[in-house]
């Protein structure tokens, strides 16, 4: 965590955990999804469920799903922006289990570049002061925080895939800060989240994606340093489509 995360973020009020943090979680979901969603469902847990309207959590989540950073002036008018963008939104509450009180499940639906219907489910918590942590993606128990560029790789659970991926990252001269990996079952689908000191090059990402064992890949930028001027996008390739 940087000292600028302690005195910061610069954000639209009223709550760092319930507004800025919520916006960041939805922004992470948006980047991980990689397409413009036409539907966003938000399932609110705990304190998020109880005080969402008071803190503008609902507006912030919708703004994040539209790609807005926590200081984006569109947050207070996010519902109107969603309507303009053709994004249908809905909110429900549920007990997500033994998780942080400020937690949310975000379900995004939309079409990819080829017109195929896609979906993504991300669960995460807002830990205070705008700090967030994703704890589940598409049913895989992995973690990432948005503090660093994060490489998400879906693959078939076969020997050597993790070594292969980290080799490519190393050859790109990128340092790995943290790596989480989870699988649904032995030999089944698996997902790894690799937090890096910087994003890998588009060429390295494209190379990874062409490997047989790898089925899906996203580079999620460091949303912790994202601002509405869009400067964070330049340092990351948010989407690599085969």
């Amino acid at each position: 965590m940087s000292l600028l995360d302690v005195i910061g973020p610069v954000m639209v009020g009223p709550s760092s955990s319930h507004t800025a943090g919520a916006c960041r979680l939805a922004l992470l979901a948006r980047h991980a999804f990689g397409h413009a969603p036409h539907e966003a469902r938000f399932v609110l847990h705990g304190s998020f469920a109880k005080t969402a309207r008071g803190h503008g959590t609902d507006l912030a989540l919708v703004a994040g799903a539209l790609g807005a950073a926590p200081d984006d002036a569109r947050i207070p008018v996010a519902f109107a922006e969603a309507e303009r963008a053709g994004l249908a939104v809905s909110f429900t509450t549920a007990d997500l289990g033994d998780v942080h009180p400020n937690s949310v499940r975000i379900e995004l639906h939309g079409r990819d570049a080829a017109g195929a219907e896609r979906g993504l489910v991300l669960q995460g918590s807002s830990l205070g002061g705008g700090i967030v942590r994703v704890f589940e993606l598409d049913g895989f128990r992995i973690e990432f925080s948005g503090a660093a560029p994060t490489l998400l790789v879906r693959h078939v659970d076969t020997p050597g895939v993790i070594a292969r991926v980290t080799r490519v990252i190393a050859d790109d001269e990128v340092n790995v800060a943290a790596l989480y990996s989870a699988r649904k079952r032995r030999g089944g689908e698996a997902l790894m989240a690799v937090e890096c000191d910087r994003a890998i090059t588009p060429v390295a990402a494209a190379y990874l994606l062409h490997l047989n064992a790898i089925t899906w890949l996203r580079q999620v930028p460091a949303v912790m340093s994202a601002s509405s001027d869009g400067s964070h996008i330049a340092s990351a390739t948010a989407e690599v489509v085969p």
Partner: protein
Amino acid sequence: MTLAALAAASGPASAAVLADQGLSDTERAALLDGMRGRLGEMRDAIARGLASDAKSRTGMVGWNAKGLWEAHDALSAPLLKRVQAYAMAVNEENARMGRIVAAPTAGSAGTIPGALIGVGDHLGLDDEALLLPLVLAAGIGEVISKTMFIAGSTGGCQAEIGSSAAMAAAAVTELLGGDAEAAVHAAAMALMNTIGLVCDPVGGYVEVPCVSRNAFFAVHAVSSAQLALAGLRSFIPPDEVVQAMASVGRMLPPELRETGEGGIADTPTGRRIALEMAR
């Protein structure tokens, strides 16, 4: 880094905080530039807040900062009035969904600008003089955040406003020439005298008591700096004070942790507002 280590630093506490970050010259310059930007944003929020009496979304707040700023200074205490008005200006902007700097949270965003910029303006200091004290404030916040989550929903208001007051107290102490030990003890005394404060926002909105609370705890921070600069110290070691606050946070029932179901939120009027806003 522990608060004990920070207090033992030979130079200013902010220098020890910067050294502890292990930054290259470029990274250090970027951090200071970022902090300069944060100060500018804080100043902008103060200016907007002092000039506006537009109501918040619920209508519970919005005119307090401007009202105080333009009122007769009944106590002949211009520093007090300035610190209170600046703090509320920022939090009323926050309540209007305006642009603020979380420091360390949005609900406590007025405390540091109120205390630090308030004292700076009172003394006619340039913003550049506030820069290293602001770095120190961030360093104190970083230490606290390693022990507990800085969020009302996990630790109660003490975790938010207590942290902001501790950060502001250290910053003001350094601004006024206090050494590292004085600054850290100012933080500890501010924290010790905030322990137990619950998070009980009416209707769940960051308005009542949050806006006035920032005025009170910006003054609290200045008080703490006054004591520390006069040589007073926290009898309980600063790191143990942080541990105590975290421990109290874990004891607080959910009703008193930002759910809007206890304390001032759970009064007949608080419940009525919650119902009205839910419609």
